[in-house]
């Protein structure tokens, strides 16, 4: 801490920072463009010019760029100096020379940083009389729109896209006032972080193309703090709604989680909410074989009451994509012993294992921000670029942590971005990536290793043994692999913040245990370590904490129960007979879960056929709904409130963005309604989210802290709620005028301290309740500066979310000893492993048209040598048949060659439409599909 003088008044400032960051942190409105808190300073735009004086006697001073000038003790600067003001006004005037003067009709207007800065500097009159330079715009794919005439050449786009996110296909081309920020030719942007260009660009060069499909003015959006549902990281988002449809997603800064950025799956997956296959009314099947028909809410509930009145023969299947509260409500409805986790046996075991490892410790799970700070990383088994993209982005920053020391030695401040990059050059890491196939992070990896999951686990076990000889050894390690293990061990051992990253991506428990062993061997030998696991869905960990055995157990119970009760059922023939029939089931209630996404279709078919009645609570018409007797319309993340637990074990609250049409409501409210109508409600019914959250916290000790994930519904600031609508929201009195000229009362919200109106507290609410970032004069997302005590650091009052898992740090951990044997090829059989795709592998985002356009198409990946043996070339049709499929089910797939795949291993894209529900890894046979044999597959 040091003292600086700004316009002759003393302020306490942070040593080592730059003056721009400090001035902003101190609340001054100093305009800027090229600087970005996550990207650092480059001194290009010259907008943040201030006057700096040598000492008290210096009256002349000189113009400096605040972003490029370090804070020094006793520094004297002036923001108000007339010369500095004149220069800043000139910079905006220069920027506006070529910029279109169409703010009132521009689609960036209203949240344009350039517009804000132009107003801030006072530039109001156009003196340039010449022609503006113009550009050709490119088609950059379905996500990002390109409008180069608006460009002010601040270089933020390429600095984010290339330097920060590792993209290669966007660059600054040409020179003078004609610098072109684009691709070498039209085409889809390759980076899965391309959507951040929309927020990084200070004006409207890059805009949200999906918003353009259903455009609305930015100040007309109703917004609420939300959490992304498209992977397990729990990035914070701001969804915006108008006229009952979700229009877009913006980043919601959370210093501990996603910071300033989102991935494209998270930003653009939202359109599933508007999908035409949404369920908006209860659906009822009057009799088996009849069609599902719309029903009124009361009839549907009556029908369910009738189903349940017949004794206690009901089970519930939860979901990792439903909130903690919804899972808990179903658990309460059916009873904990009849509640099943909505995941496969394999996933349930992996999740239990992860939860156990994290809870026992001693390795702590890091936040995404802490991942950025890691200085040596081992990624074991997880293609984070596709299963947890923002984690990959964080790792891309972590590889700069150690090399940063080179720049420190030269006394280059960390924020002097280009100077640091020039000093550091190609130094990266150490980062070791051991995965089944290549990843997009390989370009910054120190070493990579490709093998079958079991061999990846063996590498992990060997690293652990190299670190601590009391960890179980690995037999028969090839020399090269042993050398790699020792290299990795050495890098981790000498690091200050080593980190191990693994996850459920390759479906192998040994991989997870090996990762734990590496972490524990570091800890047991006195080294610091953090252990990060990815999980597949937005509430995988929360659902795992809610308990319940896998749905395969439910299948077994139901199918065998049906077999014993009803010998005429077809299912009886295939059901195992060793399960006793004391537990018969009439009705299954399935919560936000398409079982066909999670198990082989034939298995689910048998299960649903065996149950007498199926009730589904979900928001999307899917294969499971099609088999239901009653379907109740659930709210998506945008139409509901609840709590999600991310991979870190951080519980975060998401709030309803808008009131949906029809009977859509939170799943937990449906469960409550069912309990109310059947009279099975024990104690008081839950009237709002806080009540069910409290019940949940009381019933499940691990979830106790979720009470504090966000302020309760009765929280007020000065007696007021936080408005979801900005104060400029337009047309409120007119938008229903065709129906009635009387303005209706805004909908009540019993669940949140947020209102569905413009009225309320306009200041800064607690961080978990920020519905949008706005401050006077700051209409763009850059207003987030005003919500931080120190710009770029956590939100004032702390970042949202509460951590549920804090391990015992000093504990001496017991090693896992189940070291798998080395992978050996089977004659004529392949170990089929899942390959994840950021676009395609997620059930919900792929329902968004823009994501669907980018989704991977089904294929079978083979090592070229294996393919050659099979007589297959790239693009040939192959047939894959899993050994466990006894009914002859198979898949016809075009072949892709992946040289990095170990021989004997085949890759199948995970979760793609048409390939969902295949539990991998599994052994299978691959054959060449002769022409004419193609019909009948894929299923």
């Amino acid at each position, binding site marked *: 801490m040091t003292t600086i003088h700004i316009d002759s008044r003393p302020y306490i400032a942070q040593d080592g920072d730059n003056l721009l960051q400090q001035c902003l942190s101190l609340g001054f409105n100093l305009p800027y463009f090229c600087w970005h808190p996550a990207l650092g300073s480059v001194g290009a735009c010259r907008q943040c010019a201030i006057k700096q004086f040598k000492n008290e006697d210096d009256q002349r001073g000189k113009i400096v760029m605040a972003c490029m000038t370090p804070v020094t003790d006793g520094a004297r600067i002036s923001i108000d100096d007339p010369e500095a003001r004149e220069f800043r006004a000139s910079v905006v005037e220069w920027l506006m020379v070529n910029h279109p003067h169409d703010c009132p009709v521009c689609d960036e207007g209203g949240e344009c940083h350039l517009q804000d800065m132009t107003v801030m500097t006072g530039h109001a009159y156009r003196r*340039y009389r010449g022609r503006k330079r113009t550009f050709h715009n490119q088609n950059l794919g379905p996500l990002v729109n390109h409008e180069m005439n608006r460009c002010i050449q601040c270089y933020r786009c390429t600095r984010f896209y290339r330097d920060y996110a590792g993209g290669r296909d966007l660059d600054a081309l040409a020179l003078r006032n004609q610098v072109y920020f684009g691709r070498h030719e039209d085409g889809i942007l390759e980076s899965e972080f391309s959507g951040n260009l929309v927020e990084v660009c200070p004006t409207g060069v890059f805009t949200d193309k999906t918003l353009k499909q259903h455009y609305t003015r930015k100040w007309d959006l109703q917004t609420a703090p939300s959490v992304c549902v498209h992977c397990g990281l729990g990035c914070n988002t701001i969804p915006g709604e108008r006229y009952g449809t979700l229009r877009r997603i913006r980043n919601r800064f959370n210093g501990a989680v996603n910071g300033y950025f989102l991935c494209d799956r998270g930003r653009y997956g939202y359109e599933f909410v508007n999908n035409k296959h949404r369920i908006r009314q209860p659906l009822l099947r009057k009799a088996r074989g009849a069609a599902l028909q719309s029903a009124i809410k009361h009839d549907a509930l009556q029908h369910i009451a009738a189903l349940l009145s017949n004794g206690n023969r009901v089970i519930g299947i939860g979901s990792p994509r439903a909130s903690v509260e919804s899972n808990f409500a179903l658990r309460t409805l059916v009873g904990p012993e009849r509640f099943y986790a909505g995941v496969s046996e394999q996933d349930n075991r992996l999740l239990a294992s992860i939860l156990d490892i994290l809870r026992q410790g001693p390795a702590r799970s890091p936040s995404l921000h802490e991942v950025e700070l890691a200085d040596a990383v081992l990624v074991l088994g997880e293609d984070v670029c596709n299963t947890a993209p923002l984690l990959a982005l964080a790792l891309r920053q972590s590889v700069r942590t150690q090399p940063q020391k080179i720049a420190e030695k030269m006394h280059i401040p960390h924020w002097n971005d280009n100077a640091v990059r020039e*000093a550091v050059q190609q130094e990266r890491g150490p980062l070791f990536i051991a995965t089944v196939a290549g990843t997009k992070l390989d370009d910054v990896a120190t070493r990579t290793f490709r093998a079958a999951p079991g061999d990846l686990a063996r590498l992990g076990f060997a690293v652990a043994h190299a670190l601590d000889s009391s960890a179980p050894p690995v037999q028969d390690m090839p020399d090269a692999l042993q050398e790699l293990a020792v290299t990795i061990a050495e890098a981790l051992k000498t690091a200050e913040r080593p980190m191990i990253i693994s996850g459920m991506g390759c479906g192998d428990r040994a991989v997870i245990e090996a990762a734990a062993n590496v972490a524990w061997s570091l800890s047991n030998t006195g080294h610091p370590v953090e252990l990060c696991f990815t999980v597949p869905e937005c509430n995988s960990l929360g659902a795992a904490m809610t308990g319940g055995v896998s749905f395969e157990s439910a299948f077994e119970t139901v199918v065998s129960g049906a077999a014993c009760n009803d010998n005429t059922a077809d299912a009886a023939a295939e059901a195992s007979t060793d399960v006793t029939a004391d537990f018969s089931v009439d009705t299954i209630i399935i919560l936000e879960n398409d079982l066909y996404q999670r198990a082989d279709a034939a298995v689910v078919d048998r299960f649903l056929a065996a149950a007498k009645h199926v009730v589904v609570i979900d928001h999307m018409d899917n294969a499971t709904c099609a088999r239901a007797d009653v379907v109740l319309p659930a709210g998506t993340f945008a139409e509901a409130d609840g709590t999600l637990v991310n991979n870190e074990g951080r519980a975060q609250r998401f709030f309803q963005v808008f009131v949906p049409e029809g009977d859509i409501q939170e799943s937990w409210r449906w469960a409550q309604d069912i309990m109310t109508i059947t009279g099975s409600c024990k104690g008081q019914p839950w009237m709002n989210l806080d009540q069910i959250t409290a019940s949940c916290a009381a019933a499940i000790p691990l979830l106790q802290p979720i009470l504090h994930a966000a302020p309760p519904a009765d929280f007020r600031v000065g007696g007021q709620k936080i408005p979801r609508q900005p104060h400029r929201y337009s047309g409120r009195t007119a938008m229903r005028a065709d129906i009635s000229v009387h303005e209706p009362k805004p909908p009540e919200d019993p669940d949140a301290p947020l209102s569905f109106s413009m009225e309320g507290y306009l200041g800064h609410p607690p961080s978990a309740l920020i519905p949008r970032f706005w401050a006077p004069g700051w209409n763009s997302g850059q207003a987030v500066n005003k919500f931080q005590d120190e710009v770029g650091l956590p939100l004032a009052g702390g970042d949202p979310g509460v951590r549920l898992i804090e391990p015992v740090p000093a504990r001496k951990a017991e090693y896992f000893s189940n070291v798998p044997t080395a992978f050996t090829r089977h004659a004529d059989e392949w170990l089929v492993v899942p390959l994840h795709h950021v676009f395609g592998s997620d059930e919900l985002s792929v329902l968004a048209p823009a994501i669907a356009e980018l989704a991977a198409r089904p294929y079978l990946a083979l090592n070229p040598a294996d393919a050659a043996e099979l007589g297959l070339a790239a693009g040939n049709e192959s047939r894959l048949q899993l050994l466990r499929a006894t009914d002859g089910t198979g898949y016809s797939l075009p072949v892709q060659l992946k040289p990095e795949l170990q021989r004997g291993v085949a890759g199948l894209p995970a979760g793609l439409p048409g390939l969902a529900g295949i539990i991998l890894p599994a052994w299978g046979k691959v054959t060449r599909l002769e022409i004419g044999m193609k019909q009948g597959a894929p299923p």
Partner: protein
Amino acid sequence: METPLTNNISPGKEPADLRQYENAGGYAAVRKALRLAPAEVMAIVEESNLRGRGGAGFPTAKKWSFVPMGDDAPRPKYLICNADEMEPGTFKDRLLLEGDPHQLIEGMIISAYTVQADVAYIFLRWAYKLAAERLESALAEAYRQGYLGKNILGSEYSLELHLHVSAGRYICGEETALLNALEGKRANPRAKPPYPQVSGLWGKPTVVNSVETLCNVPHIVNRGAAWFKNLSRSADGGTKLYGVSGRVKKPGLWELPMGTPIREILEEHAGGMQGGYRFRGLLPGGASTNFVVADQLDVAMDFDSMQVAGSRLGTGAMIILDDKTCPVGMLLNLEHFFAQESCGWCTPCWSGLSWIEQILQGLEEGSGQSSDLERLQSHARLLGPGHTFCALAPGAAEPLQSGLKHFGDDFHRHIREKRCPWR
């Protein structure tokens, strides 16, 4: 009068080959320097008061002194010869490159030895094709003879020297933009600090010197600092290549004592103005220097005197403005060049220079307004040093602001008459 830099040069003829160069005393300085410690060589150059001939006049030994020395200095270290001569009106390096390539190579070996550089590059202007050819062949000779490569002349010192032919942009002459270009990146200048001596080419300690600077080094080492200082007519040591272009009787290039007065160069060497042309002003050191007018012609052409006179020595290559040439048109031509050569990095440069060009274009076409002069005045001020990322825009502002000062009436005539009076 001694002319050490051009002694071996006979314009229009092939340069001296290695044997001829050696016979004329060449490479003796390398032998001498290698027997001295690097610090001793540095001391000689320091004492000679050699100042960088690229235009800024920074003391060469001082520039070298910021390079980390000793065993724990980062390696490899680099020496780069900036041969990207693109300053308008300037063609002095070309003479040295084409006329005596071994002189440059010898200077580079000694300079590299002094900072203990491991690798050296000649960053050559794309258009200097003949120079490239002659350098290539001289380099091959020097390698064959053991002046370059491993253990030069049996010493412990090794140096690899490469010729890099630039893709060609004015901004590559800016030493940090040159480094980016050499790394294969956009030729945008870098932020300073850190200076190249600390974090230069590929993040390693790097010195960038101009051709003329490096060519002086062998002579200083050979003949000593006192001799070098004595060559000069001012405090700055040595000789200087002065050039004159424009409507003079004998445009050309001469090696003269540093500090020769402008009038002497113009009248004695360039032969005075051509018949029918009257002198109006000149840009003393390439395009990015302030105009010098008739009453300043007795100023000595050295770094300090020119600064006192309100201009800069720059490259020492003068461009003469005569009375039959429109000063607005001349400025338009210059500003067009600068606007075109802006790398596009910082706003005042990429936007301001284009605007200046547009205004000047308007004046020339007869559509000027009196407010245009205010715009030009304010631009000349706002593009000043420190306001922009590098020196390109301040350099462009110099002829503009001095042009407005000295030829203001001509600007007014353009507006008043709604045309260019010279057309």
